[in-house]
């Protein structure tokens, strides 16, 4: 049966709905077969709505904290942009983000990341997995963990979708299910808005495609009789998901959105991908990563950010508005994150270089105390003076916002592996 793995946020306003929902689950547990729970439309709709999801806007190459979330106008390292007030009194962000400034009540800022790794590859791996791999243990990334925690075993949609069209940096942090196994590996889109092999080959008719799959099932069932193996079961499950996933091709088709909606997100590649991300999320995909590359502004930092930050501001604001109108914002966590930030020091090419000692990210929506600001960098932005955190605490905070216990254990063989390093605490101050 369809057992959901996620937890509820526990806020009082959802108590009644939760009871209604749990009733449905209890009935299912008592013997409703197969997809019985889903057949109850009210419960199904509620379930779909309450399911928690996450969109990661991955600012690959390292966006500048000084030109986004942690401006330092008027100091030597501050650059030319001013800071503007936001809808939350006392909180200022870069003038390049006027739209997000008006929506700060949904967003918290973390201005005290010190992740100690200014290398694109290893930095990206840490920031996408929340920790460093061990020689003999590959950790799952955020998407794989959320696919497992928030996805449904029998899901008809993908659990983890990742867009990364630019080629630069793509290899730095490929989606990775690590020890969770390929069931939770991402469906990666590199070139086309449509996933590979999701559309039926034109030489096979729909009827034959369906019939041959049934033939395959019959043959494989004979083989599976009397054989017990999780791997064997996963083989059949993978084939059973094929037809459902093929039906999700429409989710990737941005032209199915009305023009007004497409205008809202804008015509850029990033805008279109985030719109598709919203379509996926709405259909129950628990995790989508949209990578916007490439921010590595060693030369012309200000021109680069003048070009790219307004796009981020626009698209992110459109996403928050759109999710809000659909009643999905409180169930969807939106993260902006990169492998690191950029140096306060401005080089002679008017660039900023790699910098992991004091940088920022943002969390919006699900489980977040909007308008909260955690941590502080010093006046020049060179170091953290308050609330320093690393990747582990950030991940613990993300998991907590999504109702997942960051100290939950997985088992690799007999070895217990907690979701975040032992003893890591989330930042309660930014959690709703």
């Amino acid at each position: 049966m369809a057992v959901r793995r996620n937890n509820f946020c526990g806020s009082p306003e959802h108590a009644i709905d939760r009871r209604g929902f749990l009733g449905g689950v209890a009935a299912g547990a008592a013997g409703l077969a197969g997809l019985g729970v889903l057949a109850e439309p009210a419960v199904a709709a509620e379930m779909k709505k309450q399911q928690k999801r996450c969109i990661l806007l991955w600012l690959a190459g390292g966006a500048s904290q000084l030109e986004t979330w942690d401006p330092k106008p008027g100091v030597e390292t501050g650059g030319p942009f001013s800071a503007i007030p936001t809808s939350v009194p006392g909180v200022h962000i870069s003038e390049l983000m006027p739209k997000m400034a008006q929506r700060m009540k949904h967003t918290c800022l973390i201005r005290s990341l010190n992740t100690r790794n200014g290398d694109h590859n290893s930095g990206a791996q840490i920031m996408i997995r929340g920790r460093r791999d061990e020689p003999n243990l590959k950790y799952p990334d955020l998407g794989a963990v959320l696919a497992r925690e928030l996805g449904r075993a029998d899901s008809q949609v993908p659990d983890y979708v990742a867009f990364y069209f630019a080629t630069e940096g793509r290899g730095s942090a490929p989606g990775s299910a690590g020890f969770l196994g390929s069931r939770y590996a991402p469906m990666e889109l590199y070139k086309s808005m449509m996933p590979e092999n999701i559309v039926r080959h034109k030489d096979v008719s729909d009827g034959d495609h369906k019939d041959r799959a049934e033939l395959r099932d019959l043959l494989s069932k004979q083989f599976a009789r009397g054989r017990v193996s999780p791997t064997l079961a996963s083989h059949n499950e993978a084939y059973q998901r094929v037809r459902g996933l093929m039906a999700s091709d429409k989710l990737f088709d941005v032209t199915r959105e009305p023009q007004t909606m497409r205008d809202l997100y804008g015509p850029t590649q990033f805008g279109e991908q985030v719109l598709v991300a919203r379509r996926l999320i709405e259909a129950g995909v628990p995790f989508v990563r949209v990578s916007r590359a490439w921010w590595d502004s060693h030369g012309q930092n200000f021109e680069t950010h003048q070009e790219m930050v307004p796009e981020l501001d626009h698209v992110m604001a459109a996403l928050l508005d759109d999710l809000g109108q659909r009643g999905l914002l409180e169930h969807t966590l939106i993260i902006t994150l990169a492998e690191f930030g950029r140096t306060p020091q401005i080089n002679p090419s008017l660039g900023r270089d790699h910098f992991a000692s004091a940088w920022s990210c943002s969390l919006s929506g699900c489980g977040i105390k909007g308008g909260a600001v955690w941590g502080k960098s010093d006046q020049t932005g060179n170091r953290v003076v308050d609330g320093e955190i690393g990747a582990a605490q950030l991940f613990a905070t993300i998991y907590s916002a999504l109702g997942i216990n960051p100290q939950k254990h997985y088992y690799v063989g007999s070895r217990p592996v907690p979701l975040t390093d032992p003893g890591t605490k989330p930042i309660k101050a930014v959690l709703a």
Partner: protein
Amino acid sequence: MAANPEKLKVVSQLSRRDILFGIARVPGTARVFLASSDAGVYVADLSQPKPDFKEIGKHKSYVTSVVLAGSSVVSGGYDGRLCWWDTQKLTQVRALDAHKKWIRKLAVSPDGRALASVADDMVCRLWDAASGKLLNELRGHTEKTPHHFSSMLYACAFSPNGKHLATGDKTGHIVVWETATGRQVTTLEAPVMYTWDPVQRVHSIGGIRSLAFSGDGALLAVGGMGKVGNIDHLEAKARVEVFDWQNGKRTAEFPGDKFTGLVERLEFHPKGDWLLAAGGAMDGFLMFLDLKAKKALKQEKVQTHVHDVALNEDRDTIYAACHGRVGVFSLKG
């Protein structure tokens, strides 16, 4: 003895903590006004061995350009403001909110009467240099790049007789205007100056950063850099193209063979002996280009990125506004 690029040497290099984007010299003196990243406008006498840099006033962001117009020096900055300062009393005469976005460059007509400002709102505004009255708005540069991002309007320059004004934007589009009427006389394209990377990094770099008319007004030089491979860096060769603009023909190109980076400033020798191109990336450069032979006469490395230069009347002394310093160079034989 005439200025000789072969004799180029450093006279002095003065270190500063800020980035200097613009420099303007008071005729007949070594007194200069400087536009600084610390939002200040400074004055200094560079004939002194250890000049005192005096701040005369402030913008709210980087000051990007300073020009002299009669008894005033006018500064423009990323705060969108134009400020007039009295060159003697060093007091503010006037301040205007001139543009909604960053002001990139100012130019003054040779008779000193008209002031042009270009900004990222993609408008060139013409002002009465004496009164600050808006004379005209020149609109001919699109606000968005072909790739749906905000464009930028970096450069402007008057012709020697003041009748024409050229403006150049990020995408390599150049417009020549009739100053008196605001009419577009012609447009030119230097598309190599703009690099859009649709595959690796999905953004852009480059743009036309400098413009200059020749002494006889027939040629228009355009500066920037060539196509960039890795747009994380200013790694393309510094580039100059020269147009016979009235006939819409490109007559010369200097794709660069020695220095990488942007050509931030162009200045013709009035007799046409050479064209000076100054700019840089992590380092800076001064290049003297021979238009007849279509080759570089002299190319010299400068310790750091050069953003602007001012030359004296004999064209044998160069005052340079650079990243973290002010340089004085001599071409005296």
